[in-house]
């Protein structure tokens, strides 16, 4: 169980005192067709990149708000952990990247008809963004435009 008390003291203090941005009003899209007819995209904030892609940059003040496109046919074991945070154990995602970027699970869901199809690209962010202004104003709208243009119906967001 992840709890605030399981974090290191510095991270615990941060989580308790950080002015989390409250989403208000909460937007809501109701599904108008069954999942089995929907196109799914994955959005992970585990900081994964593919070989040849720029790793997330730990020097960006407030956190690297950029994202990488991960092609739907990417080999999950090729994903590289470039998340800068030391606040969590990286061993699980290193041994099985599906834990944070479940490409294989998504393929199984599509093959079994649980979802209609997978989008041609999934998106990889790095969490631990302490100054989310540019994420909210730039990267998130850019990401949304891409997925809307792709005809994505549903997105699964996986943190780390």
């Amino acid at each position: 169980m992840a709890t605030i008390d399981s974090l290191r003291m510095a991270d615990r203090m941060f989580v308790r005192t950080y002015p989390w941005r409250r989403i208000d009003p909460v937007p809501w899209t109701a599904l108008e067709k069954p999942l089995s007819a929907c196109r799914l995209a994955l959005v992970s904030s585990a900081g994964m990149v593919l070989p040849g892609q720029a790793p997330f940059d730990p020097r960006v003040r407030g956190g690297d708000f950029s994202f990488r496109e991960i092609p739907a046919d990417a080999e999950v074991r090729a994903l590289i952990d470039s998340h800068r945070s030391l606040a969590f154990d990286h061993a699980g995602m290193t041994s099985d990247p599906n834990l944070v970027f479940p490409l294989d699970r998504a393929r199984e869901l599509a093959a079994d008809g649980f979802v209609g199809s997978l989008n041609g690209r999934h998106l990889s962010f790095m969490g631990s963004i302490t100054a989310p202004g540019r994420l909210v104003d730039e990267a998130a709208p850019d990401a949304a435009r891409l997925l809307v243009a792709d005809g994505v119906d549903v997105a699964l967001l996986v943190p780390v």
Partner: protein
Amino acid sequence: MSLVAAELERRGIATVAIQLLREIAVRVRPPRALFVPFPHGYPLGAPGDAAGQRQVIETALRLIETPSLAPPALVEFEPAG
């Protein structure tokens, strides 16, 4: 993650977010979230446990299909068996 989810919802994509820390989700209020009882770094459970990972993902996605939910929909994951 929640901020990206909100932007997707505003543009017509239904989302569900896996959440490890209930305290943060309650404050930030993503549109739909599934709280999972796993440690940091293990959002879908155990590495190599394909069936377990899939159970979490299917449970999360089913929230999108559940008409009785209203925003923000913050739901606990209860493993089967």
